[in-house]
């Protein structure tokens, strides 16, 4: 059996598979939200999704365009204020996984969503930190999903908006009350995990039809590969169908004016 699928679909399906039914997931908007809802609509029907807008245990029928679409509130168990969300639910230690995207990532999984260039006169001003700086330290672990390219996978991020393991891989050592940090990075080419000793990101699985050279070419540092390099299973027919339905539903919803 050979199904047609895009690299983006491969990424979303792989990211979705990382979520388990018993997880409490703090969901970033965009790719993480797509993956989290795909997980909920396939193998993890009871996964708990939380969005920073205050919606607890939400089950949207279409993907939200923003972090606070009405759909999120209407399908939630309850909706709390934003201060309560960050204080009681995130800082309070109830989140098992934070699911983030990023504009830049480096070998120690530090994330930059602030700017390209110099802080005082930026070449490109990006949106900024949002919830990510504290999601990354309070969640018990962090998943990151992002498209793989030299623009994104850089040798050193211009700015650490959100800490992975710091410039030297040691930023979490000896820090009390901090999560274990990024445990999984899912791109459209591969899966990366931090080396247990050095915390440097290592490719552990290549997606179907992707070569080592593809990954090397798309990475801004001298990327390492696990000795036991795996091959990511292709999306199943069901995964693809659910994903495509979800995206079609969502696109139609966001294009129609109210």
């Amino acid at each position, binding site marked *: 059996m050979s199904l047609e699928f895009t690299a983006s679909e491969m990424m979303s399906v792989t990211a979705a598979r990382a979520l388990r039914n018993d997880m409490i997931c703090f969901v970033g*908007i965009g790719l993480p939200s797509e993956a989290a809802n795909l997980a909920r609509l396939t193998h993890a029907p009871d996964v708990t999704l939380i969005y920073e*807008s205050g919606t607890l245990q939400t089950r949207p029928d279409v993907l939200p365009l923003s972090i606070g679409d009405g759909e*999120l509130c209407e399908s939630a168990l309850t909706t709390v204020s934003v201060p309560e969300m960050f*204080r009681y639910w995130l800082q309070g230690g109830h989140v098992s996984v934070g699911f983030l995207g990023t504009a830049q990532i480096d070998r120690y999984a530090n994330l930059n969503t602030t700017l390209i260039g110099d802080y005082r006169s930026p070449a490109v001003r990006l949106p900024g*930190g*949002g919830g990510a700086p504290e999601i990354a330290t309070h969640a018990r672990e962090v998943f990151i999903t992002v498209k793989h390219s030299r623009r994104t996978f850089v040798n050193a991020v211009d700015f650490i908006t959100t*800490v992975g393991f710091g410039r030297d891989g040691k930023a979490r050592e000896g820090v009390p009350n901090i999560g274990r940090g990024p445990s999984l990075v899912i791109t459209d080419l591969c899966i990366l995990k931090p080396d247990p000793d050095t915390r440097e990101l290592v490719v552990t699985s290549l997606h179907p039809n992707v070569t080592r050279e593809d990954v090397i070419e798309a990475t801004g540092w001298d990327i390492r590969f696990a000795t036991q390099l795996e091959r990511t299973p292709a999306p199943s027919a069901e995964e693809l169908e659910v994903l495509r339905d979800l995206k079609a539903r969502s696109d139609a919803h966001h294009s129609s004016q109210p």
Partner: protein
Amino acid sequence: MAEFLSLQNAVAKHIHDGDTVAMEGFTHLIPFAAGHEIIRQEKRDLTLIRMTPDLIYDQMIGAGCARKLIFSWGGNPGVGSLHRLRDAVEKGWPNRIEVVEHSHAAMACAYEAGASGLPLAILRGYIGSDLPKVNDQIRFIECPFSGERLAAVPSVRPDVTVIHAQRADRRGNVLVEGIVGVQKEAVLAARRSIVTVEEIVDDLGASVNACVLPAWAITAIALAPGGAKPSYALGYYDRDNAFYKAWDAIARDRQAFLAWLNDNVFTTRADQGAE
């Protein structure tokens, strides 16, 4: 005690050039009608506070109302950049603006501390982030009990907060429902407040623990049906996601933006609603 005013009079009376202004609504209930009235009245040198500047501050910054922005996430949600914000930060058009940047957690705590009458908020935050290097308002304290190092930020205490809500009763009590964001905190943290509402009713119909702001905690209320569009008001109308997408092209180009502003804000009266 809340005074019922037209939106035009509320903005004229309570927002002055140079004021620190918070206009809140976390994706939901963004007070666009009030933002447009501020643009029409050509308010200047405002310090604008908002967790997510969104289109409302993109428009106000592009229209030249702001000299400073305090925020924590400045994008067009699900779409991309805020081009007017970027143009101001990157190129100084129409004027250079100062940027003070936090994380959401810190901003949320800073509003909460403002509402609590405290000068600072304490959180476990900014660990390993470069943000404290570029924002001297982020300090650290040591917990006298545990010895843990915790972040401290000044509380948010705006001159005036503007929010949009579903409804007010005739005595001036206000119900906010759904994604309530930091609106209650923003109103309570401010010296003055303006609340625009979809409608004014005899009975709020609020459940026992609903988010209700008493009349005596509000300065002015203005009727502004549709006043959150293209954002949304739960129970009244949906988010105009198509407009959020269309905004990308409008805002990308200075002339297209100015034309939009002229057609949709300057030649529109407050009582015609937003957008």
